């Protein structure tokens, strides 16, 4: 079970990384098309879809690596018991929010499919296709939060400090 879950997060992250390359590829194609006078319609929109997929699919993996930021000021100053209590609360709250996020993301993709929603840009993509990445990514994030909550409850959760200082800003 443990292995299967970790594989799931890593596989989603690998897919996300591929989509990041996709962003680059789309932008480069757009520029090349402009310079060399060929036209691939919708590279702008595809770059946007790739970016969304990269972001959503990596959510769980990033959480597991401890790289999603949170305010840990109070958490770090508590004793072991209180810390566990607060961790359980914040994980429970996050799980609830992730569940809402996942439910409505799936619903969005399903509705786009049912109503045949098509992008208004010149790519005319049926929107459920790129929205699938959002649905999948948020569901995997929900699984990861439930996973973390269960681990914390059973006292087996390791608090990971990010491997290297974040370069976020």
């Amino acid at each position, binding site marked *: 079970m443990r292995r299967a879950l970790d594989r799931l997060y890593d596989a989603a*992250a690998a897919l*996300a*990384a591929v989509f*990041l*390359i996709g*962003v*680059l590829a789309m*932008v*480069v194609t*757009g*520029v090349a098309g402009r310079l060399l006078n060929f036209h691939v319609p919708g590279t*702008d*929109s595809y*770059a*946007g*879809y790739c*970016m*969304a997929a*990269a*972001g*959503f699919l*990596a*959510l769980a*993996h*990033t*959480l597991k*690596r401890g*790289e*999603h*930021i*949170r*305010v*840990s*000021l*109070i*958490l770090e100053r508590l004793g072991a018991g209180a810390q566990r209590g*607060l*961790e359980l*609360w*914040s994980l429970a*709250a*996050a799980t609830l*929010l*992730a569940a*809402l*996020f996942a*439910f*409505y*993301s799936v*619903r*969005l993709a399903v509705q786009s499919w049912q109503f045949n929603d098509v992008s208004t840009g010149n790519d005319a993509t049926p929107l459920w296709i*790129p*929205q699938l990445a*959002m649905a999948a990514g948020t569901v995997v994030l929900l699984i990861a939060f439930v996973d973390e909550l269960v681990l914390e409850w059973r006292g087996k959760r390791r608090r990971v400090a990010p491997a*290297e*200082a*974040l*370069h*976020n*800003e």
Partner: protein
Amino acid sequence: MSDPAITGLLVVALLLLLGSGVWIGLALAGVAWIGMELFSSRPAGDAMAVTIWGSASSWTLTALPLFVWMGEILFRTRLSEDMFKGLAPWLERVPGRLLHTNIIGCTIFAAVSGSSAATCATIGKMTLPELKRRGYPEGMTIGTLAGAGTLGLLIPPSIIMIVYGVSADVSIAQLFIAGVVPGLMLALLFSGYIVVWALANPGKIPEITHRTTLAQKLAAARHLIPVVLLIATVLGSIYAGVATATEAAAFGVLGSLAISGWQGSLTWASFRDSLLGGTRLYCMIALILAGAAFLTLSMGYIGLPRHLAEWIGSLELSPFALIVALAVFYIVLGCFLDGISMVVLTMGVILPTVQAAGIDLLWFGIFIVLVVEMAQITPPVGFNLFVLQGMTRHEITYIARHTLPMFLLMIVAVLMIWFFPQLITWLPQQMKLG
């Protein structure tokens, strides 16, 4: 329910969620949810999904993951080492000598990196051990590095400028170019401080061990060529109007890969690490942006920003008083939150007020970036302090104390852009419209 009561309730909910350690992006979404369910008639869930999808897949934002990735590639090259080699011989005669490698190194690296913490880490990786080995006073080394690292935000490309540009609907290319002059000015202030300090404390700067000739200096400068070419490609293409910010970012990624390959540091492992590192970093930002997009929508439904603007308008503050108040507000907020969260959390609420006061949004963008820079070096939460804590194993209070002069210089910079707004507006006006 009355306005102050609604605001109060939402602020308390936000503080509870954030303070108890709920991940920031989710906490923002949670507050948005509460606001929308309680105070508007639109169903919250579907609005959330549509809004987040729209913001997460918007073309204007695509510069962000690319610049993030570029930074991760450069972090894994020998670029900082090369820059140190290229710069050091030129600084023999300047008072403060190699301390300036911190400032100039960060300034140059900031022009290819969008992040302050990454700038600090990349340059520090080289200068901290080198300067320590040569006997430079450690407090000064750390303080100037922490301060100069923040230039990563102000000197384009800049992740926080992209975030601001997207939320305030200001041209990212213009913001980038607008940051150049204030960035250089701040670098000069830092360098000036080092010169003054070195002159006031003779003997604290170690003696020169050997002098280099001009020929040697010029030969050493060749190490700077790759980074200069990369800057020229990224910023030049934006300034000349031939590329959008996103396209410049794509050139930047390709250029960084080329540098990495040319140096021989491009291996499958380093490529994979930079790609995954960039993906995670972008993902972390994306979660905050997602929560903030929903929060902005929710606030808009409740009408909070408009009411706040009306209320502040009724106080009849002068624009200067407003800016001072906002600066204090952001610096305090910056003690607890990271820069991106600060910007996205407040923009949706504060922009109408700023516009009503007749403040130019381009100018305000640079102001915000400067204030966020200060937040980077204020304890207890300051990312540059964290980075340096990790690298030097010093207490955060020690680092913060030595960084204080830089903080004061930034206040000087804020005053200067207030009294001389041309520092910001002049260069973008010269730009060709891309």
